[in-house]
Each structure stands twice: as C-alpha cells, then as structure tokens.
C-alpha cells in the first residue's frame, strides 16, 4: 500500500475510475486537492469554468456524451451552493455525475465557520447519494461507492463533501471498484414471465405504439428499439430526452410526444391498443391531463427504477429492467408483423401538421427569419450529424422539432428541470467528451445571459463549440403563454439585450450576426466551417409561437395546431 495525502488519494481514486476530465473552480476549502491536481495535470484535464453552475452543467454534458459520470470539483460554501442547480438538473434527467466539494475542517463543522454550508443537508433531496468525508482513510472506499452509485441503475448525481483535514491527512491507498452495497442492487434482468405477457400483448395488438425516453439512450438500447419496431411494425414516438435514439427519418419514427410534440403521436396515444413505454417516466409534460391519458390502452412499462412503475400511469405489465436487456428478451418473442394502416394514420396527421404549421414555419415567404427556418437549415447543412445542445424556451422546442438527428446522442437539453443557462456549459462538456463531433449550442437570448460567462471558458481552452443565438428579444416561451393564457399581458418578458456580437468578441470568441434571410445560409456555412469556437446571432421573429401545443391541464387529444 502506498502512503499519500487525502488529496493525492482523491486523484488516485479518479484515475482508478478512468476519469480523464474534470470541470471545476478552486477556493479555500478545496485548495489541497487543487494542489495535488497540479501534479496530475497531464493525466487529468481540468477545465476551469467561470461559475460553478457551469462546472455542473459541463459535467452533465460530458456524461451525456460518454455515459460515464461527469466530475465537478468546487470549494465549500458558495462554490457548493452555486452547483446546486446543476445537481438538481442531473437528478431529474438521470445524469451520472460525481460532485466533489471542499468543506471546512472537521473540527469546525457546525460552528458557522468561514464558507461553511451544510452541503450534505442542502443536496440530500437532489442527489442519488451524498456523503461527508471527514477522514482521509475513507476516501478510496467512498469514491468507489460514489462512482458505482452514480453510474449504475438509474444514473444520477452523487456528492462528496470532503473536509479540509481529510484532504491533508496521510493515509494508505488501496482501491476496490464497484463495492457491494447491501441496500443497492439495481435489477437489470427482466422477469421472463412479464416479458412473455408483454410479447403476447404486442403480438395480438392492432395498434401498438412504442414510447421511448432517455432510458433508451442511457441503456444504449437504440438497436433493440429499432429491431422491435421493425420486426413488429410498431410506430415509435419519443420524449424530449429520448430524441435521437432512432434516426429522425426512420420510416417508423413518428415524432415527439408531449406539450410541443407532434400532432399524430399525441392524438394517437389515445387510440393505441397497446403501449410499450421504454425508459420514460410519463412526465406531466408528456401525458397532459392524466385522467384522459391512454385509458384505452394496455400499457407495458419498462424502467430500471421500480419507483417509476405505476407512479403516474398504471401499467398492465410493469417490467423492472435495463431497457436493453428487456428489449433484447422481448424481440426474440415477438412475431413479425406490420401495421400499415395504423402507421398511415400517423402520416395523415403529419400531413395536417405540415400544412398548418411546419410549411410556413420552415419556409416563410416573407418577414423576419423564423427560428424553425434557421434550425431546419442547420439540420440540412449538418446532415443531422451534429450534436445539438439546446437551452430552455421556445428555441428548445424548435430545436427538438426541426433538427433531425441521424446519429444517437445528438440532442442534449435540460428536460426535467428546464434549466435556463444549461446549454453553453453543457455544450462545453459535450465537445470535450466528443471532440470529433460538431457540437452546436442553440440558445435563446434570455437563456444565454444566464451563463454567458462560460464564453471565457470556451476561449481559454479553445473548445470549438458553435453557438447559435436565436434572438427574439423576448423571454419567448413565457411571452407565448402570456399571449395565449393571460390576455396578452406581457409582464416583464421584454429584453433589452446586450450586443451579443460585441460581447462575444470581448470574450475572444468570433461572432457575427444575421438578421436578414439572405444572410442566413452563408452565415451558417461560416459558423460550421470554423475550427474554433464561434457564435452566430440570428435575429428572429419577435412574436413567433410554438405549435402544436397541448395546453397545461388539457388531454393529449386536445393538442392545438394554432
């Protein structure tokens, strides 16, 4: 066994877990760890963000691309509390993350010491697990446990709070990965009987419908989804976070579910006779009014988290399992089939949606540039092969609707928490994780100003994220609701924005602006051709609305096209 300080043990533990990149921000209570990191800087890449929230979202972006836990390293007190939003975000979107926070000396705990905050207390409701390390000797065991918990089962954020004395003390290092934890043994194998019942239901179904969610991407079950869909001829709809699990142009992919999803999948949810829901959790944004949601259908629900089964929607066949294992077992038992008429029904709704919404959104003949037109053009130019990281608001829904991903892991957004300010730092994490892919952050003018400081991170580490600002000079999503549901009383949604191009250049990130239709294509070409971080501000229609829309409290059938 090797003798070392607690801080060195932190580094060695990270190496044991295969960590090659961390996102962080130093400060008093974490200085010993930063001091150790200095010796490990050629083995572990540290990206210095400009605000700890940025570190958290960057770690999330990294995790979403790699499937491995992202790591954020911050100091005590304000450093840790700045991380809170990102932790809550990771919790709701099942993103594996290990957050390391410094803490005051163990002897000072509870004394209101300088920069002391009860971080374990604050983060208990928003972490999968957290723990305060007060002795150096605990470090290897607790780190092994943390990575195991963050990355297995239903992934999530874990926080380790390390008191300063534990960072300094000497200890003897030995590491054992994936320790046994009595109360934590996630079940991944499906129950054979449940699979048989599910197969029988699907084999007898006339109007089967598969709903896929983030769990499909997490479990890497994309191929299995495709196999089942193709073998049994089942149309597939996706939640916001399930997007890109199936290529957008797959003949059985029928679009997005939920509030701003597509017309057909919403309406036809209430006509399907068997629903196969995989790695999705029937969030209220997906189901609309629950009492009128899919009442006619037999529901097969596959999720690795037992607490999700029967939480919102009662299922006839609940299956606790890893999505890939369950679907692989299922595909062997289902019969070849096609449901041509049923799939055509979706296509009929598509036509109507195209005529009433998509055509004039993506191909407006005059007036200002629309968000949809810009995103559709981007989608074409990148052949759907880029990773789109979107922020929160109208532009997020537009990106989800009009970017047509052809590769998996191509649409990253803050779904569950809906965190404005997510996209820029998350795109940094995604690009660091997958430098070979084009990573494009699509951000609203409001959202951009929530973590705009991360432009400096981009510039310092020369991370070639491409930023598109869809600028409507409004908190557009809120404005839309005020227009539709609050008599057009535009209460504090109007933004006097900074000159984004000047701001960006001030951060040493190349920037340009397009406000005329004629400029758009060339400007996008230049953005995509750049090998450096770059920003394109597109000035778009001020009062554009997102349709279709299932108004809050309405049933999915009541989805509106205008």
């Amino acid at each position, binding site marked *: 066994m090797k003798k070392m300080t607690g801080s060195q043990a932190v580094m060695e533990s990270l190496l044991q877990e295969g960590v090659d990149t961390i996102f962080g921000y130093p400060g008093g209570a974490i200085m010993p760890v930063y001091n150790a990191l200095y010796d490990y800087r050629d083995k572990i890449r540290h990206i210095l963000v400009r605000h700890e929230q940025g570190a958290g979202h960057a770690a999330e972006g990294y995790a979403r691309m790699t499937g491995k836990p992202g790591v954020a390293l911050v100091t005590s007190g304000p450093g840790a509390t700045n991380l809170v939003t990102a932790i809550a975000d990771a919790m709701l979107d099942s993103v594996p993350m290990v957050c390391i926070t410094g803490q005051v000396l163990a002897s000072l705990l509870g004394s209101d010491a300088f920069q002391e905050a009860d971080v374990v207390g604050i983060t*208990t409701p928003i972490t999968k697990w957290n723990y305060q390390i007060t002795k150096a000797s605990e470090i290897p065991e607790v780190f092994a446990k943390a990575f195991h918990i963050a990355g297995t089962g239903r992934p999530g954020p874990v926080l380790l709070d390390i008191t300063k004395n534990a960072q300094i003390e000497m200890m003897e290092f030995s590491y054992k990965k994936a320790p046994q934890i*009595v*109360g934590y043994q996630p079940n991944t194998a499906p129950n054979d009987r449940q699979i048989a019942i599910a197969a029988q239901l699907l084999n007898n179904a006339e109007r089967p419908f598969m709903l896929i969610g983030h769990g499909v991407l997490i479990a890497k079950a994309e191929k299995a989804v495709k196999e089942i869909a193709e073998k049994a001829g089942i149309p597939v709809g996706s939640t916001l976070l399930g997007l890109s699990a199936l290529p957008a142009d797959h003949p059985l992919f029928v679009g997005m579910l939920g509030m701003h999803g597509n017309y057909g999948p919403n309406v036809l949810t209430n006509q399907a006779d068997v629903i196969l829901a995989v790695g999705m959790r029937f969030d209220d944004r997906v189901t609309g009014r629950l009492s009128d949601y899919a009442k006619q259908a037999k529901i097969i629900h596959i999720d690795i988290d037992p*607490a999700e089964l*029967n939480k919102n929607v009662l299922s006839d066949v609940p299956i606790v399992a890893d999505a890939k294992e369950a679907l692989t077992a299922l595909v062997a038992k289902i019969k070849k089939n096609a449901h041509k008429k049923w799939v055509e029904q979706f296509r009929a709704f598509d036509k109507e949606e195209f005529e009433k919404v998509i055509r004039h959104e993506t191909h407006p003949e005059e007036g200002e540039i629309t968000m949809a037109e810009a995103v559709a053009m981007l989608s074409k130019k990148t052949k759907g092969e880029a990773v789109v990281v979107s922020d929160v608001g109208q532009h997020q829904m537009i990106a989800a609707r009009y970017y047509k991903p052809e590769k998996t892991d191509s649409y990253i957004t803050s779904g569950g928490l809906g965190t404005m300010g997510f996209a820029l730092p998350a795109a940094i994490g995604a690009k660091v994780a997958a430098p070979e892919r084009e990573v494009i952050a699509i951000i609203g003018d409001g959202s951009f100003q929530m973590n705009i400081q991360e432009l400096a991170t981009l510039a310092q580490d020369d991370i070639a994220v491409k930023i598109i600002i869809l600028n409507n000079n409004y908190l557009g999503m809120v404005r839309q609701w005020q227009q539709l549901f609050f008599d057009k009383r535009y209460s504090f949604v109007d933004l006097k924005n900074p000159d984004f191009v000047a701001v960006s250049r001030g951060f040493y990130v190349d920037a340009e602006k397009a406000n005329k239709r004629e400029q758009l294509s060339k400007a996008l070409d230049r953005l995509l051709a750049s090998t450096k971080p770059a920003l394109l501000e597109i000035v778009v229609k001020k009062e554009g609305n997102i349709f279709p829309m299932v108004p809050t409290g309405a049933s999915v059938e009541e989805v509106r096209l205008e």
Partner: protein
Amino acid sequence: MDEIKLYTIIIFTENKPGVLYRIADMFLKRKINIESLTVSEIESQEMSRFTIRVKGDHLAVEKITKQLYKIIEVVKVLEKTDEALVFKELALIKVATSNAEKMRGVEDIVRMAKAEIVAVGSTYLVIEKAGSEEDIDSLYALLKPFGIKEYVRSGRIAILK
C-alpha cells in the same frame, strides 16, 4: 381515491449518519404526515429499524414505499395495516392527585385499564400503559378530568404476525 387508512411502514436501514434525515425528507417531499416514529438498533448491530405510522391511501403509501428504496442505505421496506401486525405503544401519564379521593379514583381507572402506577409523588401519580394507540387514547380520556401534568408516548413498535 382509495380509502384513507393508517399504515405502519417498517424500514430496515444501514446504521449510518443522516438516514433519519433522508427518510424524513421522502415523507416531506410527498407531503405525507408522520403520525409516529420509532427508531431502534436491531439484532445485527449495523442495522436500524424504523417504525413509522402514517395516514394515507394505499396508492400513496405504496409509492412512498418504493421511493424509500431509492435511499441507498435502505435495505428493506414493509408496509402493513394493523391486521398483519402485533404492535404496541408505551405511554407515561403524570396525573394530578391533590387528595386521597382523587388518588383512589385514579387507582380504580388504572386497575380497570390494566395500566400500572410506576411513581408516586405527594401531588401526582405516574401511570405507565402499554397497549394499542386506542387503549392509550381511552385511558388518557378517562384520566383527563383529574388533570394531566405531563404526558408522553413512545410511538409504535411492531412485529409482523
């Protein structure tokens, strides 16, 4: 909506710091009020046993049972109604007994209720009663007219039938 009933949730956990906080937080998050709570060490020293009494409909109780498993330290959760349990609560009641007549009155009730006098002062008696929550409630009601100086209950302990 299901019928609202009293449920006893028994939770076995690793005996680690903060588990009570995590469990309490789960109930807080779901807005389920805790009627009573007892925590004790169990046979093997590293484990704790929580006995929690809650009021709710079956679905809500089932949901929280599943969510409790999300707490890493939680090893097993059982959710039972009274029929499936042998259960008891302990109460200590300090009753004012300013004169002999009152003292006799209290003694009669204690005998009837199969309770026990565990301490005697010049102006009070301390009564101990082990029984169901209802037994304790009715004893309390009988003693109340005498004047209750202090009153404490343990919360339920329960064992499966």
